[in-house]
């Protein structure tokens, strides 16, 4: 073979480099996320909100519980009150920062718990099928029969108020939808040939579940769970609004919205602030989960 040919062949590896580049699954996800500016912005926003909630004691200019009859319902930008004051004269900015702590907790913890429990039930139902599936999924259907808000109100009403009970309520409400997504994903994976190939090696069910099933079920479930964070925040706010969640004077976005609603004709902008916080946070979580779904390339 002559030089020209040999050269062209020698040059080929460089040209066909994309095929040879090795990239892990998560590496690929990051590559796609990197150019998705909306998602990146929302991630930054969420980080900002989380940080501001965590560091609320240092960031807040005032004590969120110190009321002042002299400064009730001041408008935005009134003197040192950047976001005005509420109906008891407490600083809105400080309350908003503190309120974020409760609201984010309500958004994230129930979703995490529900993902663990619901995901486990879903995977078991999807993998074993038949009677196990029937037992688990029909039970979930009973919960599904009620609108989620109604269910939350009912459970919360019987458990009573308080942060722990509210989180418990939200967890119970979120388990059925996650369970269903996990079940669907698992039964799809379960029928794949690679699971049969694994069974043919004599592997135990636990080993197959952990090596082959979970890894494939995880991404649709995680993407779906991330959409639930905003729902959870809104539900929690709703419960507080109805007086079924945290009790006053605890700073919580939902509760703030509830107490400020009487002042809506006096200070409409100030009254709307907790609502805006809920809206922005839940939209950010939703957009991130959308971005994640695209980057993870799964259909959920």
């Amino acid at each position, binding site marked *: *073979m*002559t*030089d*020209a*040919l040999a*050269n*062209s*062949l020698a*040059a*080929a*590896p460089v*040209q*066909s*480099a*994309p*095929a*040879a580049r090795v990239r892990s699954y998560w590496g690929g996800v990051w*590559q796609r996320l990197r*150019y998705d500016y909306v998602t990146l912005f929302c991630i930054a926003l969420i980080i900002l909100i989380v940080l501001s909630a965590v560091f609320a004691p240092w960031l807040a200019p005032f004590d969120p519980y110190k009321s002042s009859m002299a400064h009730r319902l001041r408008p935005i930008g009134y003197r040192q009150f950047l976001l005005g004051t509420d109906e008891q004269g407490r600083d809105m900015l400080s309350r908003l920062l503190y309120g974020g702590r409760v609201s984010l907790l309500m958004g994230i913890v129930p979703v995490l718990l529900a993902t663990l429990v619901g995901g486990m039930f879903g995977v078991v139902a999807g993998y074993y099928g038949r009677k196990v599936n029937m037992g688990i999924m029909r039970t979930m259907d009973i919960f599904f029969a009620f609108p989620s808000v109604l269910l939350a109100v009912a459970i919360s009403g019987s458990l009573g108020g308080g942060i722990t009970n509210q989180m418990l309520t939200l967890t119970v409400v979120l388990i059925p939808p996650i369970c269903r997504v996990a079940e669907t994903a698992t039964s799809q994976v379960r029928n794949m040939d690679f699971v049969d190939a694994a069974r043919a090696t004599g592997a135990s069910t636990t080993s197959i579940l952990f090596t082959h099933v979970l890894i494939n079920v995880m991404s649709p479930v995680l993407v779906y769970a991330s959409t639930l964070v905003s729902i959870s925040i809104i539900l929690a706010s709703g419960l507080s609004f109805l007086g079924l969640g945290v009790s006053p004077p605890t700073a919580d976005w939902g509760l703030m919205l509830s107490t400020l609603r009487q002042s809506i004709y006096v200070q409409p902008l100030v009254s709307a602030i907790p609502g805006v916080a809920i809206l922005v946070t839940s939209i950010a979580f939703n957009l991130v989960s959308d971005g994640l779904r695209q980057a993870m390339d799964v259909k959920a």
Partner: protein
Amino acid sequence: MNDMTTPNLSGSQPLATPFVSVKDLRVRFVSREATVRAVNGVTFDLARGEVLCVIGESGSGKSVMMRSLLRLHPKKRTVIEGSMQVGEHDIGTVSDRVLSKLRGSTISMIFQEPMTALDPLYTIGDQIAETVRRHEGLGREAAWARALELLELVRVPSPERRLKAYPHELSGGLRQRAMIAVALSCRPSLLLADEPTTALDASVQIQVLVLLRRLQREMDMSMIFVTHDLGVAAQIADKVAVMYAGRIIEYGSVGDVLNRPQHPYTQAMLASTVKDQERVVPLEAIAGSPPDLRALPEGCSFLPRCAYAEPECAVAMPSETVDASRHMARCYRVGLEGKRLAFNGSALPPGGRATPAPMAAERAEMLGRSA
């Protein structure tokens, strides 16, 4: 490319107006990571009532080329260059409104998997009637009558009953027939077929092929039929185009291409097809796999797998050599001998064909391209 310097394939007796005329078609898919050059200068003409089989491996650009004729690719990420003339319409420039009228009436398409082409929520009758009503403005009754007629045409047994059936209630062969009925409902002049028989059993495949050939003749349709199966091409084609890395590397009448293949790739593909070979002899496989369309090298794309590679092959893609019977091949080793194409494999180093370019094959494998 030097494609344009050589005579066009439009006919030994130049046809007045070919029904389909594709000139220097190029299709690229652009994404952030890479540009995939799927079709790289395809030129062909198709007369009315003629069947062209496009043969190639997966990734040869055959389906992409065909789908361009209906502009089915996502607009945002696709760059289409060149001209595609079907009848009096230039597919590349017609408005979306005109195009959607053309789709299903003048140009129709059938697919490999009918379940993806038929709507699972409507009965077969509804789907045919809907197409007929939309394109031909027939009334409800007339459209149903036409649907029944069409199912009879594609030889579906007990058609009255099948009209009310949903796609999932039909067997694979019947579904394929139903899809053909939908595609033919408005008497298209051009039928595009994307591997419509690949997923079928041999016994059903032959039924569908016989049916398609009969309908094509009766309705005087032009047909472009994409397949990777040479046996299917032998059954249905008038003309055959062999595609490799987005180019037509051999073209001619079905007899010329299948019985007197000139391009080394066509030869190797015929040789590697399992027929009634002696069992103890290993098959003549083509080493390596098709090139990476994201980074096509200069020169002949088949070079790394070719048993006859020479230095000049690496410089530029060979131009078209066409003989009197319009048999075309793009290879430096193909010349004209009198009125016919002639492959010159004699000037080879000893061993030539028997040891398919050991070095080239090894290289291809080193690049991780072994199949």
